[in-house]
Structures are given as structure tokens and as C-alpha cells.
């Protein structure tokens, strides 16, 4: 693992819970590792496999999807669907041994600023440990 490896992590955050949680982490001045770029979506269920694959294949070292806790979805059921889709994607990557650990699904509520910071930092650590994604440099992808 190189010292200067700064992973690129893409985080899809749902507007109502996780994005608010991230804001709270910010206003609580919690320190996070500067590797995660946040992309706001209205509901975690908007995140389809293509977006995740895009990020992953285009060289993201990690992808995080965060939404409201099950049952808390602002649109009632969205996160249940995304969980299924995610389970599918994870399984595909697992079967093909494509480093499924680079994908993570987390439920982060609006009040969980602390958790947001913890999740992001832990994920960043894990990814740093995994090292750069090889897709990043493969000219055939």
C-alpha cells in the first residue's frame, strides 16, 4: 500500500436522511477523510446498478450508497427496493470475485452525524487498505 494513495470514493446520499446526516456531521465539525465525493439523490432507490457500475468501472475505489433506515424512507418503500438491488449487485460482484468490498450500503439517519463520519472514515480506511482499484488503470475498461 502506497503512502500517498488517496482513494476516490463516490457516495450516493439520499436527500432526506443521509444527506442531512452528512450535513449534521459537518455542522458538528466532525472530521472525515477527504476521499468521499457526495452525490445527492432524492431517494436511495434512485441509484440503479448502472450508476454504481459506472463509478466502479470508471475507477472509483469505493462506492457508498446511503439512505434512510428501513422503514424511515421519505417515500415509504424506496430503500427496501434499493436494498434488494444492492444485494443483487453485491452477489454478482462476489460471484465474479470483483472486489465486492468496494461497495457499501449504509443506513444513516438525519440525526446520525456521528455515524456518518464513522461510516465514511471506516470505509475510507478499508478502501485504503484494499489499495487502488485495478479498473482505474486498465486501459481496456
Amino acid at each position, binding site marked *: 500500500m502506497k503512502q500517498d494513495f488517496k482513494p476516490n470514493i463516490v457516495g450516493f446520499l439520499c436527500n*432526506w*436522511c443521509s444527506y*442531512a446526516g452528512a450535513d*449534521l456531521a459537518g*455542522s*458538528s*465539525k466532525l472530521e472525515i477523510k477527504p476521499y468521499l465525493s457526495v452525490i445527492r439523490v432524492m431517494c436511495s432507490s434512485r441509484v440503479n446498478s448502472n450508476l454504481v457500475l459506472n463509478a466502479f468501472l470508471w475507477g472509483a475505489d469505493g462506492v457508498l450508497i446511503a439512505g*434512510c*433506515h428501513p*422503514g*424511515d424512507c*421519505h417515500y415509504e418503500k424506496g430503500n427496501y427496493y434499493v436494498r434488494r438491488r444492492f444485494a443483487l449487485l453485491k452477489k454478482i460482484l462476489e460471484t465474479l470475485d470483483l472486489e465486492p468490498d468496494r461497495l457499501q450500503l449504509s443506513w444513516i*439517519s*438525519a*440525526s*446520525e*452525524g*456521528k*455515524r456518518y463520519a464513522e461510516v465514511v472514515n471506516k470505509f475510507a480506511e478499508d478502501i485504503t487498505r484494499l489499495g487502488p482499484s485495478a479498473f482505474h488503470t486498465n486501459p481496456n475498461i
Partner: protein
Amino acid sequence: MKNPNVLVIGSGVAGMEASLILGEAGQKVYLIEKESLIGGQTIKFEEVYPNMECATCMVAPKQQEILQNENIELFLLSEVEQVKGSVGEFKVKIKKKARYVSLVNCIGCGACYEPCPVSLENEFEEGLSKKKAIAVACPGALPNVPAIDPENCLRLNGKKKECQACKEACMFDAINFSEKDEILDLEVGAILIATGFGLLDAKNLPQYGYRKAKNVYTAMEFERLYAANGPTEGKLVLRDGETPKSIAIIHCVGRSEQGYCSGVCCMYSTKFSHFLKHKIPEAKICEFHTDLCIPGKSHQKFYQKILNQGVDFIRFDDIKVEEKNGKMQVIYKNGNGEKDKFIADMIILSPAMIPGGDTESLAKTIGISLDKKGFFSTQSEKLSPVATAVDGIFVAGCAEGPKDIPGSIAQAEAAAGKILSILR
């Protein structure tokens, strides 16, 4: 011509809901809140039964809407001083206390907390954490603007007149020590009281050992204790930093003294068990209850689920808490009249919901009556569950009696409905 404006007193879920409905209808709403933030009691909860939704996530969009709605004028740190007139033409005097921090200039960066030399007990956190004399109640409070506590601010209470640490730290010129309390005159067509509830002070019931035994908490304290934005950031620890291994939750604290069942304690106590079981799976948890009051179509299922998770539910007749050799024990008589005891590291009391602190004075100010239990009374004999005896004055939420959140919201919507119906 009736004045179309409405005065809403209290910005808890009921007050917010009613204000939003009235605001959406195009009515001008004056929303009066005695605290420095909006949201009432609900924002203190981490999650709510029976679906364990995150309360902040539920309420935050509503809070945002209140702050952004053009039809809603919000008065924080404010109380009603006088009400005159009748339906369609009430004249109201409001006392708005100085905040000393400008809601317009402050951007909520929090730079001013650090330098403040005063450290105080944080009431919002049930005294479980400290705050400064200039502070917001909790992270994520809305509006995200601190207030200065004039009684404790060294400059304002005169103890150190030259202190202006906060002002120096503020880059936005948001702090104004010379701000004064104001009296405002409002004219409204209808008034809605949504001042909420308080909890019976457990100190008044010595048998429960509150404030005597070390780790006895009230329900509200426990709510904050496990809140992700609370004093321990959701870490469940006792005052000495230990993780509790056996927990007793005692229902009906003050029920017989108050003479009514508060209707929600059984469920929220069960919710506590749910949370505890989740966080500390190996912990022994015991719920002490009398009659279980779990109406609502999904509540029994929830109770059953917790029961199946291995939480003990014990029906008691007589109960007290004692501390012996540093161990707390719950001594009780069970449903069959047999005596028994339970050793607990942590005891959570579920006290009765009582009228909010200033209910009596507010009733006097407005000129409406209270019922036997001290809540605002409605014309229930006329099947008007949100109307008071005075035309044009309504009551919603726990100001009318103990209630759960949906009950409060429904009442708020009902009151808004009645108001829209009479003001059109």
C-alpha cells in the same frame, strides 16, 4: 370581516402541523414558541414506535418548511402576555425575549461557543451534558442559531461586564448584547393552543429512588441518552461509563397519583426494550407494568415481538427501588401477590404525562378553563374534541391530554380544519 390570521402557541409536532396546514391554505400564521428552537419534544426522540422510524428524519423536513414558509411568522423565546377580544378579532400581546443573536446574520457556524467561559447544565439534554451560555440546544437544532442565556451570561448578568468573547469570535456581526425584550401586538381571528406536556417529576415519588439511586433515569433522559445527536452520541453508558447489563423499566410512574393512564408509556417503554435488546443483546431487561395499554392496530404485534426477543414483562402491584451496597434493586409484588426483586444496573422510569409548565397561567391569560387533571378542556360533550368553550380558541396535542404523535397530529389537523372552516 373576520381577521384571517391565526395565532398558534407552541411549535411541537402539533403546532407545526397546524401552522403548515394553515400556512398552505394562505392564512397568516403567528407561531409562538417559548424556547429558542422549534420542534417540541419529538425532536428529542431517537426513534419512535412501532416502526422505529428516526424522529429527526421525520420532523426535520417539517421544521425546514416552517422556517421557509412565507405565511408563517415565527416568534421564538416568546410567550403570550394578554388576549382580548373574541372570535374573528382577538387582540394578542406577545412578549418576545431577547435572543442577543441575530437570526438573520447568524449562519450557524458555531464559532462563538468555544470562547464562552460559562459552562451550564443543558436542560434540553435533561442535564446530561453541559452547554455554554451561548449555545444551540443540540446539534441539528433548528433554527441553527444559538441564543444567549441572559441569566448566566457573565456580561448580561453583570458578573463580568466586559466579557465579549462570543462577539469577538463571531465573524458575521450576529451578536447584539443590547437587544431588548419586546412586546408585540398581534391581531388574529383564531387561536390554537398546542403547548404540549411535561413529565411528572419523579422526585416527587420517592419510592422510585430517582436522584437518590445513581442510575435511575426518566424516560426523557433515556431518550436523550440513546439519541445519536444526544450527549453521548448514542452510546449507551451509565454515569460511570459502564454498559448496563440488567435494566428495569418501570411503567405507570405516577399513574395512580395523577388518576389517569397516559396511554403512551407502555409502548415507548417497549420501544426502549427494543433498542436495548438491539444494542446490548446479552442484557437482561425487565419491564414492570400494571395494565398494559397498547391500543393501535400495530402495537400489540410490536409488543409480541419484543416479548419474543426475551424481554421479561412483569405485572406489579407494588413496587419500589432501593440501593444496597451500590446495587440497585427493584422490589415488587407481582400479579399474584408474591414478593420478588430484580437487581438492575439501570432503571428507567416512565412517568405520567402532565400539563406543560405554564398551562395554568396561559389558561388564565387567555381566559379558558382547565379540566380536573389540569389539561385544557374541550367541549367533548358537544362532540367537539378540539374546541374550547371560547369560540375561536382551539386546543391540540398533549395540551389537551396525554397523546401519542399521530393523535397529536390528527388533532392539530382537526383544529386547523375547524379554524379554516370558521374563518372562511
